[in-house]
């Protein structure tokens, strides 16, 4: 079971590096039709337990051309996502298919999620481009050690 050790602080939270790719089904389709596969994008991400679905900044989508299949609600106070008053201040956002991996320093130890549905939120203003939420953490054990300023993610 790989262990990913992370530094944390109160101000910036729990940060890690994540690789965003096209999802596996798209990858297989592109290969079968001999089309170019978009290069993965490595981004700075925050690990968070406050929401159900992981999300990425729209700029990441533009860099990798992810398939778009749905829209959803997003409650993201502090971002500049346009809110809909009739939805109680939440916003509508686009939802994409993707693959992602939490990058581990050791070879072959990344946490790979070949198929995941990601929402878009304007995150760049916070110095991150992705937030990893409970949908990914559902397969992990997270130990958050505030006094030592460290956390461990086991998967």
């Amino acid at each position, binding site marked *: 079971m790989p262990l990913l050790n992370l530094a944390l602080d109160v101000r910036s939270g729990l940060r890690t590096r994540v690789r965003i790719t096209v999802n596996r*089904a*798209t990858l297989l*389709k592109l290969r079968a039709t001999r089309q170019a596969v978009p290069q993965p994008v490595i981004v700075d991400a925050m690990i968070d337990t406050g929401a159900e679905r992981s999300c990425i900044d*729209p700029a990441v*989508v533009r860099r990798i051309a992810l*398939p*778009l*299949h*749905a*829209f*959803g*609600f997003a409650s993201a106070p502090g971002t500049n996502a*346009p*809110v*809909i008053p*009739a*939805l109680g201040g939440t*916003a*509508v*956002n*686009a939802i994409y*298919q993707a693959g992602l991996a939490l990058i581990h320093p050791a070879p072959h130890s990344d946490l790979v999620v070949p*198929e995941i*549905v990601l929402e*878009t939120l304007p995150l760049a203003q916070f110095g991150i481009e992705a937030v990893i939420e409970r949908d990914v953490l559902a397969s992990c054990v997270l130990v958050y050690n505030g006094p030592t300023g460290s956390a461990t993610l086991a998967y």
Partner: protein
Amino acid sequence: MTPTLPPGFPTELAPLATEIHTYFRVLPQLLAEGEEGRFAVVKGAEVFGTWDTQKDAIQYGHERVPDGQFLAQEIDARFLTAFGAFFQPPAASGTA
């Protein structure tokens, strides 16, 4: 001509504008049939059924839609509350 989307919808959803209009057109019926919480697969003006999970809906969409451009959208009454007036046609006024 590509249909328009209401204010507040991200511009990146524009390629699925036709499908979104279809979704809102059938949303009242799907809700009446007890489909809330399931996921509808929509291409153009057609609905290709509903599925328990978004993953299943997306997989089915890829099997049925050759160009891979489709909507796999959760059936949610809150969307009707927020945007129903934009998508639903006004009731025709009858005259005797």
